[in-house]
C-alpha cells in the first residue's frame, strides 16, 4: 500500500459530519474506523495527511505525509449503516476543510466488511489512543508530561488501562515495565528510582495488571502491602491526639483508610483507589482475610469525610468549623469506589452534586472522572461526553494521565469494567 495509488473520493453524509467536527481533527492520525463483522478481527488503516496552504486548506492531491499504520479493535466502534460495496484498496476522502483526507483500508482475507457511521467519539478516541501510543517511552512506561522523558507509574497505569485490548501501543511492554518496577515490599514507587517504601500508586498498578496471569504473584504482593498500609490515625496514639489536642479538622479517627504515602493520614483519593483495587479480588482468603474489614473501614472513612453539601475534596470536609468546597475529580473517584453503596443518602447527595457541577467543567481530567462516576451511577452522560470530545486540542494535552483518562471516559463501559465497577 503506498501513497501513490489513486484515490477515489467518497463523500458520504458521515464524512460531511466529520468535516464539521472540531479543530482537533486537524491532528487526526487515523481518519475513520472499519471493522469486520463476526469475530474480533483487526483491520489495518493507513492515513496520509496532506500539507495545507496558508489558509489552512488542504492542497489537492499534493504529496502526502505517511503516518504509521495502526490496528484497532472492533469493540471500540459501533456501526449503524449498511456498507457500500467493499473493494480492495478502498480510499476515503473528506471535505477540503479538513486536511485529513485519505485512508486506505487493507481488506486482505476479509469476506466482507461494513462502513461505519462515522461519529465524532470514535474518531477522537482513535486520535487520542494514537497520541497516547506515540508517547510511550522505550522503557515501556509513560511520563507524566508529554515534554518529559522520566517514566512514571500513574500515567503508565491509566495508559495501560486505556490501551487494554486495543492493538495500538505496546501494552505488553507497559505491563512488563510495571512488573519490573515493583518494590521488594510488594508496593510500587511513584517512578523508577524513587525510594522503595511505596505509595498510593500501588492500587492503580494492581488494577492495571488485573488480566495478566503472570502478574498474579506481583498483584498478590501488592494487595498484601495495601492491607498492611493504613492512615496514621489507625494508630492509637494519633487517634488519641486527634480526639484531644488536634480537633480543627472535623473527622472521626476511628474511620481510617489509606494515605498517599506511609506515615501520613488517610485521604480520599488513595482510599478510593485502594477500595477499587481490593474489591477486584474475588475472595478474601490466602492471607487476604482482612479485605472485607479494610474495605468497610475505608468506606466508613469516605462517608465520614464527605463535605456537608455532598461531594469530596482531598479529605477535609470541615476545617475550623467552615465547610470546604468539594472537588469534582475527588468526588468522582470516591463515587466509583462507593458504587456498591449507591442507595446511601450520602452517596446520592454526592452524585447529585457531581451531576450539577459536571456540565460547567472545562478541564478534561475532572470531566473524564465525572463521566466515569456518573455512568457508574447510571446518570445521563451523553452531553458530558460531547463536551469532552469537543474540548479544543484534546490530543495536545500535556498531562498524559489526563489524555489516558479522556480515552477511558469516551470508552466508559470498558473503563468501568477495568476499574471493577459493574453498572
Amino acid at each position: 500500500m503506498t501513497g501513490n495509488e489513486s484515490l477515489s473520493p467518497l463523500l458520504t453524509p458521515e464524512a460531511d459530519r466529520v468535516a464539521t467536527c472540531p479543530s482537533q481533527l486537524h491532528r487526526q492520525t487515523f481518519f475513520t474506523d472499519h471493522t469486520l463483522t463476526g469475530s474480533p478481527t483487526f483491520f489495518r488503516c493507513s492515513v496520509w495527511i496532506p500539507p495545507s496552504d496558508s489558509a489552512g486548506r488542504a492542497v489537492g492531491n499534493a504529496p502526502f505525509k505517511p503516518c504509521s499504520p495502526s490496528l484497532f479493535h472492533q469493540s471500540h466502534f459501533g456501526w449503524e449503516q449498511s456498507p457500500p460495496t467493499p473493494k480492495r484498496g478502498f480510499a476515503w476522502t473528506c471535505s477540503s476543510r479538513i486536511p485529513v483526507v485519505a485512508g486506505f483500508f487493507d481488506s486482505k482475507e476479509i469476506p466482507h466488511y461494513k462502513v461505519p457511521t462515522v461519529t465524532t467519539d470514535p474518531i477522537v478516541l482513535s486520535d487520542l489512543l494514537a497520541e497516547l501510543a506515540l508517547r510511550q517511552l522505550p522503557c515501556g512506561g509513560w511520563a507524566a508530561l508529554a515534554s518529559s522523558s522520566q517514566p512514571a507509574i500513574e500515567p503508565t497505569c491509566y495508559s495501560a488501562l486505556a490501551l487494554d485490548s486495543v492493538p495500538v501501543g505496546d501494552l505488553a511492554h507497559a505491563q512488563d515495565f510495571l512488573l519490573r518496577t515493583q518494590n521488594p515490599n510488594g508496593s510500587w514507587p511513584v517512578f523508577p528510582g524513587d525510594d522503595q517504601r511505596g505509595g498510593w500508586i500501588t492500587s492503580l498498578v494492581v488494577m492495571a495488571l488485573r488480566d495478566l496471569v503472570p502478574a498474579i504473584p506481583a498483584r498478590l504482593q501488592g494487595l498484601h502491602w495495601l492491607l498492611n498500609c493504613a492512615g496514621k490515625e489507625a494508630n492509637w496514639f494519633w487517634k488519641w491526639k486527634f480526639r484531644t489536642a488536634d480537633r480543627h479538622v472535623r473527622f472521626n479517627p476511628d474511620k481510617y483508610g489509606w494515605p498517599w504515602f506511609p506515615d501520613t493520614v488517610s485521604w480520599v483519593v488513595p482510599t478510593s483507589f485502594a477500595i477499587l483495587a481490593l474489591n477486584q479480588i474475588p475472595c478474601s482468603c490466602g492471607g487476604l482475610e482482612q479485605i472485607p474489614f479494610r474495605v468497610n473501614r475505608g468506606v466508613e472513612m469516605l462517608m465520614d469525610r464527605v463535605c456537608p453539601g455532598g461531594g469530596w475534596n482531598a479529605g477535609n470536609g470541615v476545617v475550623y468549623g467552615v465547610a470546604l468546597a468539594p472537588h469534582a475529580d475527588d468526588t468522582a473517584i470516591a463515587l466509583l469506589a462507593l458504587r456498591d453503596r449507591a442507595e446511601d443518602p450520602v452517596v446520592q447527595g454526592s452524585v447529585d452534586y457531581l451531576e450539577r457541577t459536571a456540565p460547567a467543567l472545562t478541564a478534561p481530567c475532572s470531566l473524564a472522572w465525572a463521566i466515569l462516576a456518573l455512568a457508574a451511577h447510571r446518570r445521563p452522560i451523553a452531553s458530558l461526553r460531547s463536551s469532552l470530545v469537543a474540548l479544543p486540542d484534546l490530543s495536545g494535552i500535556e498531562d498524559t494521565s489526563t489524555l489516558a483518562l479522556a480515552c477511558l471516559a469516551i470508552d466508559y463501559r470498558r473503563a468501568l469494567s477495568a476499574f471493577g465497577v459493574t453498572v
Partner: protein
Amino acid sequence: MSVTRRDFLIGSAALAAGATVTTPFLLPKYHSDQRPKRSRVAIVDAQQYSQQLDQILAAGLRLFPIDVLGKTVVLKPNLVDYIPGNAINTHPLLVLAAAESFRRLGAKSVLVAEGPGHQRDTQLVLSQSGYEQSLRDEKIRFVDLNRDELIRTPLRAGYTGMKPLWLPRTVLEADFLVSMPKIKTHHWSGVTLSMKNMFGVVPGTRYGWPKNILHWKGIQESILDLCATVPIHFVIADGIVAMEGNGPLNGTPRPLGTIVLADDPVAADATCARLMGFESGRIVHIREGARFIGNASSALIDQAAETVDVPATPFQVVPEFRFLRAPLKCDATASNAQESQASKTPYAR
C-alpha cells in the same frame, strides 16, 4: 578528694551522653549562611488589578539592580484552588505583568510554574482562576510542578530531618526564581507569604494532596528546609487584595493596595508581616530564616518606594495565631527591639 578510675569512667560516659543529646540542639540546622549583607524591599502602591500593573511593576522593578539578561525566569505564583469571591490565588494580571517586565529586561524565557496543593486538577484551577486564557494569549508556558520531572535533591537545612526531597527540574534549573505569593493568613502557619509559597514546588504526585508529609514534618520546619534548598531570587507579593482570617482558602478579602517587591524572601516576608500588623519575629520561619536565608531586621533592609504603614487594625487570624498581632500603634523601633530579642530565642517547637 580522690577520683577513682570507676568515677572517672562513669563521669566520662555521662559527659559523652550529655554531649550526644545536646549537640544537635546547639549546632546550626543549616548548611550555610546565605544572607546578603543588605536587602532591598519596595512597597509599591497598586489599588486594583488592571492593565496598569504593567507600568506599575516595571517602575517597581527599576528600583532593583536586576540582571536577567539571557536567563530563564520562573514565576511561581500562589495557585491553590478556586472558590468564587475568595482572594486565594495570586492574580493572573500581576503574573502577566511580571512576565512582560522580565521579558523586557532581556530574559531568555519566562515561564509560570506551580503545583497546586489542594486541587489535583491543575488545569481546572488554571481555567477557573483565569490563568489558562491569559497565559495562552500571551504565549507564556505553564509547567505543572506536581507532575514535572523530578530530581533527588539533598536538603541544605535539617529542620525537618527529612531525607532528600524529589523536586521539579523546572525549578531547580531556573536561573532566576521569582516567588509571587498572595499575602494571606494561614490557619496552620500563621501567614503564607513568599517562603511558604515554596510548598508549591513540592510535587503532589510524589508527596500527595495536600502535601501532607510537610505538615507531619512541621510546616515551619519544612518552609525553612525548602527555602534553604531552593533559593528564591526575587519576590513579587500580591497585596492588592490580600486575605485575612481563616486562610489560605476561606479567609476574607482584605484590600491592602500594595505590591511588595524584594530581592530577599525573608526581608519580603518580614515586611509583609508588618503590613499585616504582625510581629514578624513571632513567625517562626521568618525569625529562623533571618539566621541564614535573609534579613528580617529593618536595619538591614533598604526600603524603597512607600514606607511600611502598619495598619490600624491588624489582619484577623484564627485564635491560635492571635499572638502574631503587633500591639497597636507600635513603632518601628519597638518592633525591631522585640524582633531582635525574638531572634535570640533558640529555635524550639
